[in-house]
């Protein structure tokens, strides 16, 4: 078994409010291997984006890490000083956000932003950095890269802008890229292009990716493994094919069943009753129990621990009963 590149263990993110702390991420653990694409999927409020933000140390106050650890190649990065974290960010962990406009400075040209990032993290002179910036833009598929260096972010279309952001994230050759909903703001046809670019580049450079998204389709296309989150907890994590084709946790099964299939016409979609609980009203035991058709007494009393079922890990008391004997 290969050594984990990034190890997240029992990560807890809480928000201080006047009514006491709200737990938005609750004891989340996973490993990321070098070169692997891990999908972090869930519906809004599941805590997937916060998990990503906690890993790169970009939690907005009053949110903060209230427990657990994040280690990059065996070194903890969750409790290091701000200054040290800033060096990790960009150099060792890159980021791609949903809205490319917020991650680019509108006052500087794309070239200036790229060369600055490159020179901050790599020992190159101006000319070398510039050449590297051109190479990066070519790699992400921006036509006339040399000329586009002089353009400002607003002069790019949404899809092209997201390519620039990917180039920026990869500028310092980081070991990990965290991509938070990188295609959500884009049109369908552009989405496919961006996914293809991200996937190709990370494979070429051996960069590991944490892909945060609500879109199972994107996960199916891109990820090697996928972690499904519900109410701040991981309910199921495993190889993408297993999770998508033979999900075990009742939530994952409900989620998969509720997606309209573009290649077939189901008369009626499977639906999970109710909605994800608010953070101040997460039920005791298994967070999913009030919506679960199979819930038993133990589900209401005790929080299920992760257990290995086949190639996946599932947090469900009844997981074994859902697996068809081979």
């Amino acid at each position: 078994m290969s050594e984990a590149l990034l190890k997240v263990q029992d990560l807890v993110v809480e928000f201080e409010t006047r009514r006491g702390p709200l737990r938005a991420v609750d004891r989340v653990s996973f490993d990321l291997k070098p070169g692997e694409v891990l999908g972090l999927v869930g519906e809004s409020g599941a805590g997937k984006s916060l998990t990503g933000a906690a890993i790169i140390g970009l939690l907005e106050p009053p949110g903060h890490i209230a427990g657990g650890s994040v280690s990059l190649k065996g070194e903890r990065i969750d409790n290091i000083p701000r200054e040290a974290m800033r060096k990790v960010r960009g150099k060792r962990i890159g980021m791609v956000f949903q809205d490319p406009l917020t991650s680019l400075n509108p006052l500087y040209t794309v070239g200036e932003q790229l060369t600055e990032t490159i020179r901050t993290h790599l020992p190159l002179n101006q000319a070398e950095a510039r050449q590297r910036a051109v190479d990066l833009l070519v790699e992400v598929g921006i036509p006339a890269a040399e000329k586009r260096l002089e353009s400002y972010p607003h002069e790019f279309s949404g899809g092209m802008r997201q390519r620039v952001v990917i180039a920026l994230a990869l500028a310092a050759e980081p070991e990990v890229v965290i991509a938070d909903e990188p295609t959500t703001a884009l049109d369908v046809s552009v989405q496919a292009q961006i996914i293809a670019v991200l996937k190709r580049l990370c494979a070429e450079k051996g960069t590991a990716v944490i892909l945060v998204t609500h879109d199972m389709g994107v996960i199916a296309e891109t990820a090697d493994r996928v972690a499904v989150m519900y109410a701040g907890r991981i309910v199921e994590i495993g190889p993408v094919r297993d999770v998508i084709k033979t999900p075990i946790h009742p939530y994952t099964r409900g989620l998969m069943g509720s997606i309209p299939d573009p290649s077939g016409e189901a008369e009626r979609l499977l639906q999970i009753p109710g909605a994800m609980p608010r953070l101040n009203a997460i039920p005791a035991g298994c967070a999913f129990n009030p919506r679960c058709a199979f819930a038993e007494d133990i589900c209401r009393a005790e929080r299920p621990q992760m257990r290995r079922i086949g190639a996946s890990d599932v947090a469900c008391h009844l997981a074994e009963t859902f697996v068809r004997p081979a």
Partner: protein
Amino acid sequence: MSALVTVENLTRVFDVSKPWLNRVIEGHPKLFLTAVDDVSFSIPKGKTFALVGESGSGKSTIAKMIVGLVRPTSGRIAFDGTDMAGIGTDAASRRLRSRFQMIFQDPYASLNPRMRVGDIIAEPLRTFGLETDRAAVSARVSELLRLVKLDPRDSVKFPHEFSGGQRQRIAIARALAGRPEFIVCDEPTSALDVSVQAQILNLMRDLQEEFGLTYLFISHNLAVVRHMASEVGVLYLGRLVETAPTRQLFAAPSHPYTRMLLESVPDIGMTGRARMPPSGEIPNPINPPAGCHYHPRCPLVREECRRQRPPVVTVGADRVMCFAAGEPR
């Protein structure tokens, strides 16, 4: 089968020029954006017609014109034979208005945050004068809430006390209040999570069956469209490039743009089919390419595509705006 809604040669041009003073001083010409360009379709009673398109396709503008929020520049919209031009706020217009409704994309913006849910749902009842008696209004509101699977006791709450999916149910209850025959649904689930989307789509189908509703369903999500629609129209930069029965459109798309759209849907079934990422991007709608708007991205492009607007060709039940339509490939 008779058409409930007929749209003929609908066109809408927006003036997107800078203010007059800027134009004079900076010497800019007037700028126009043809958001909807000569679009025609009709929706049979009790069916769902879907309009699919990416940003700038004009799908929302068509929806707004049909419900009278935006005036067409030219063309005609007929509702059950009645021309919708010049619909106002007089009594006759109200009677016509009570027959159609709209459901919006963002359930956070479509409900007045300062009004109680009961009052929101009762708005159409009061405006159309359908119920005047207090008790009758409250009984009808309770009935509507139950219809969308909410609790009648929710009527005294405010919208912010509900989740996105519940808000969309409230919006649906409001839409149903005036017992309409036709509902324009503008991306009704694209702001919602998938599990909630499934609840809303199922609810909409149940309601359609129960009340014989006719839907115009607008979406960018092809999977959702396939699930909901009986016929689909594909829009590209304001033009309807293909109209076909759903099954046929998904099985054998004729227009190259439709094919590209279908191709770019992520393969959630993990069938392992090889995908070619689409090439190019949507051009600026203020200055679209001449001839067929799709020609710069089209693999089948030929000389005439660059010069001339392609005619609409009928291939079986499929209407396609393409020079190459109907040719074997």
